[in-house]
């Protein structure tokens, strides 16, 4: 019984977020070898981020088989890593995610110089790692899906 419970906990626990610079996140975009990659920058304390989170997971679930990958990058402070892990666990995230590392301004400009730094922010890349769309602020499932479909069509 205890062994079953422990196995279940291990299977559902999210991997510890990987500290990553923007260059490392962008390398992961290419390494995903996907047709479209959705990069979402979020934080545990950010209410709109938490609100749109389930839609991102739903999108990943719906389009995984069509070559869509989701990279989640937390903008939380390093000292808040446990809150990040707890939230990912609550959401049932069982794939690798990232924790922002390094200078904010370099981080922001690496994704999109037009981004002011407000959270959440979502960037959609094509299979070659080219940024094809930026969504600033909270977005809906329909908005995410529309941008992903545009990239899939053009792939």
């Amino acid at each position, binding site marked *: 019984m205890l062994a079953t419970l422990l196995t279940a906990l291990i299977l559902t626990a999210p991997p510890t977020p990987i500290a990553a610079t923007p260059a490392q996140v962008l390398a992961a975009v290419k390494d995903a070898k996907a047709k479209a990659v959705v990069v979402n*920058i979020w*934080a545990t*304390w*950010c*209410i*709109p981020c938490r609100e749109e989170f389930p839609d991102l997971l739903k999108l990943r679930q719906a389009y995984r088989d069509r070559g869509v990958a989701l990279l989640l990058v937390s*903008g939380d*402070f*390093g*000292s808040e890593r446990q809150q990040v892990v707890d939230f990912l666990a609550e959401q049932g995230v069982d794939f690798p995610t990232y924790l*922002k590392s390094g*200078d*904010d*301004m370099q*981080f*922001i*400009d690496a994704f999109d*110089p*037009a*981004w*002011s*730094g*407000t*959270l959440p922010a979502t960037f959609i890349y094509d299979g070659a790692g080219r940024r094809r769309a930026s969504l600033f*602020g909270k977005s809906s499932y329909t908005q995410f899906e529309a941008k992903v479909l545009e990239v899939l069509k053009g792939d």
Partner: protein
Amino acid sequence: MWMRAVLFGLALAAPAAGLELGATAPKADVKMKNVDGRELTITEIAGKQGTLVIFTCNHCPWAKAWEERIAALGNEYAKRGIGVIAVNANDPKTNTADGFDGMVERSKQRGFQFAYVVDSGSTVAKAFGAERTPEVFLFDAGGKLVYHGTVDDNAENASAVKQHYLRDALESVATGKPVAVAETKALGCTIKYY
């Protein structure tokens, strides 16, 4: 001029959203309720050497992380001819911690020796194009925007700061010198407009 553009190319390459450098403060005559109960405007706060407008709030972890540094800078440069005003443009309906009582408490707790006002309707924030908390706008003695952006390059750890963007800009303005790095960015909470 060319050399200056090259030297500060990084800041020029990625302009932030919002009011453009060289602009004057919009909605400067809008009255805003201060934590001491007075109705104040940016025009009334303006200092002889310059004016610092800080969009901030009570609940945002980024704003809280920089709060002691903002208090220290605001208090120091208010004594050196810079008019300082912190503005809360968040609709408290989205987070009750951003209400007026919370502002009064926070101002006392942090020892703000400058105004902390309510931008009811987010009128001033919208006119500035301010999007996040904290976000600062620094005007020179002539009322022109000379610095827009963040406080420094490390919200989480004050002792690990390498770039004191706001302090450097304030020092330049207080001494009548040009600001070297005029636009910076950082992660932050969105302003919860009314």
